[in-house]
């Protein structure tokens, strides 16, 4: 009675979400990647059991061990019933029996596994979810679900997708893992580059979605950022995966996340980099980012993550907007454009160009971007164009650009931001 080590009246924040990933990882190691869905169901079952029983009996002394035992027993029951349906299959029988024994041993022991083992299981699960054979959106959804413990509805809210769409992605991803016979393991060094590349891309994708000021639940989106950073950190801490790109990506995420608190005003409206109160930036996080950026410098590879992190570092370590070293930033964007000429990168390069050579040069850079249908709907293209026109004194063109941007706006803060710009165009006396 003296030691109630885990449960003191209330549960640790996010305990269930984090245990979900931990337990699914461990079960998937025992059951094999093709039975990922079985692992997931067993863990969900255990959590629902807790929801039924704990209200009446209170949380058990060791909530995690309780959940693990129920989940393992559930998986065991499902395995047993599955075995009854099988004909003779020696090899599978043996494997199954081994799995059962291991399961039983773990299921009765108090959660005493080494943290390294837990980390390895999770790493292997990440590699399963982010296998290059899976479409990236499917990997994103699956990683968030089984590694990070998000619910379908939460993923849908973050990505502004329907629950049906998310569910379909998850089902398809799990079917592909089965069909492709993806193994539950950390890939060997020969394959690591390609496999890790896909993992980093998936983490970057859901970090970006979390960071983006587009529509979607802000609280969930912040959690998305935190999870992406947590997973990137675990990759950066593991000798098998701590490649320079990994440190670069982590640094990039930390620089971006450090600026989240300053990105909106009290009303939730977006603030431009030049409008942000830089004292609100999270200094310790920026310093952590710099440390990882330094580690990213080992080796001779220069990835897009390196360049983006470098640019973010420039902004993050500049005391005031007017002191920004735009020449250096433009040079970095030039390099980035060679590696990754995406619309976002090209628009940002045009903005840097305007800072160095004036708004006319910025406009030229924007015009040089090949406009496809999708880009035509790109809000930042139009608002950047409007801003350059405004600086050049072309108020008619500026107004037209801001109106085009307004038509692409997906959130109220974006709309208010552009309406503010339009009001300012008509004269300072009208804009408050």
């Amino acid at each position, binding site marked *: 009675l003296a030691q109630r080590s885990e449960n003191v*009246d*209330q*549960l640790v924040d*996010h*305990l*269930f*979400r984090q*245990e*979900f990933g931990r337990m699914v990882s461990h079960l998937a190691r025992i059951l094999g990647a093709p039975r990922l869905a079985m692992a997931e169901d067993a863990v*969900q079952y255990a*959590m*629902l059991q*807790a*929801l*039924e*029983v*704990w*209200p*009446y*009996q*209170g*949380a058990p002394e060791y909530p995690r061990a309780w959940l693990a035992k129920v989940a393992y027993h559930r998986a065991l029951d499902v395995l047993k019933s599955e075995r009854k349906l099988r004909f003779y299959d020696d090899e599978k029988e043996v494997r199954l029996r081994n799995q059962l024994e291991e399961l039983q041993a773990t299921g009765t022991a108090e959660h005493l596994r080494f943290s390294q083992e837990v980390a390895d299981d999770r790493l292997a699960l990440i590699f399963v979810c982010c296998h290059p054979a899976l479409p990236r959106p499917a990997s994103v959804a699956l990683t968030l679900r089984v590694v990070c*413990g*998000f*619910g*379908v*509805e*939460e993923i849908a809210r973050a990505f502004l997708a329907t629950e049906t769409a998310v569910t379909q992605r998850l089902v398809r991803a799990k079917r592909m893992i089965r069909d492709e016979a993806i193994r539950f393991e950390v890939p060997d060094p020969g394959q690591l580059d390609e496999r890790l590349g896909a993992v980093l891309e998936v983490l970057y994708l859901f970090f970006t979605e979390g960071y983006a000021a587009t529509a979607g639940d802000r609280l969930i989106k912040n959690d998305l950022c935190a999870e992406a950073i947590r997973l990137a950190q675990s990759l950066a801490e593991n000798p098998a995966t701590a490649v320079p790109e990994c440190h670069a990506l982590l640094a990039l995420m930390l620089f971006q996340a450090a600026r989240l608190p300053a990105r909106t005003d009290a009303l939730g409206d977006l603030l431009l980099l030049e409008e942000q109160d830089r004292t609100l930036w999270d200094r310790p996080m920026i310093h952590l980012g710099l440390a990882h950026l330094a580690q990213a410098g080992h080796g001779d590879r220069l990835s897009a993550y390196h360049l983006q992190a470098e640019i973010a570092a420039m902004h993050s370590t500049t005391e005031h907007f007017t002191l920004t070293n735009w020449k250096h930033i433009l040079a970095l964007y030039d390099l980035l454009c060679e590696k990754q000429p995406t619309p976002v990168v090209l628009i940002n390069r045009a903005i840097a160009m305007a800072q160095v050579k004036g708004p006319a040069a910025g406009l030229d850079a924007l015009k040089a971007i090949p406009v496809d249908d999708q880009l035509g709907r790109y809000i930042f293209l139009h608002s950047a164009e409007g801003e350059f026109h405004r600086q050049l004194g072309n108020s008619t063109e500026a107004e037209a650009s801001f109106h085009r941007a307004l038509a692409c706006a997906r959130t109220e803060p974006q709309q208010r931001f552009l309406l503010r710009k339009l009001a300012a165009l008509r004269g300072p006396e009208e804009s408050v």
Partner: protein
Amino acid sequence: MPNFLLLLHQTPTSFRNLSPEEIQKILGSHIAWREALVKRNKMRAGEKLTDDGGRHLRTKGGMVSVTDGPFSESQEILGGFFMIEAEDYEEAVEIARTCPHLVEGRWIEVRRVQPVHVT
């Protein structure tokens, strides 16, 4: 002090789609409610009952007959119970009123345990 039985009525629940975070949130409110009563030394017992109709035993002409209690997914069942200690109905109701069980479609029956005075 008198004992009261709180009978928690509900329709069998399907929580299948709840996320771990949501499950923890719901549990958190239940645990806090129960823990507060434990601290005030008011909580005697509590158990969850299975989601079925149970068994009904009756005698007719000296014979005991056993039947399955009525059960369907949409029918109300007794989900579980708490035994608490309270001065009177007023206090027992006050305690039950704050129970997180009380959401739309669920209700709580408060019954006083018949006191027996043996001296």
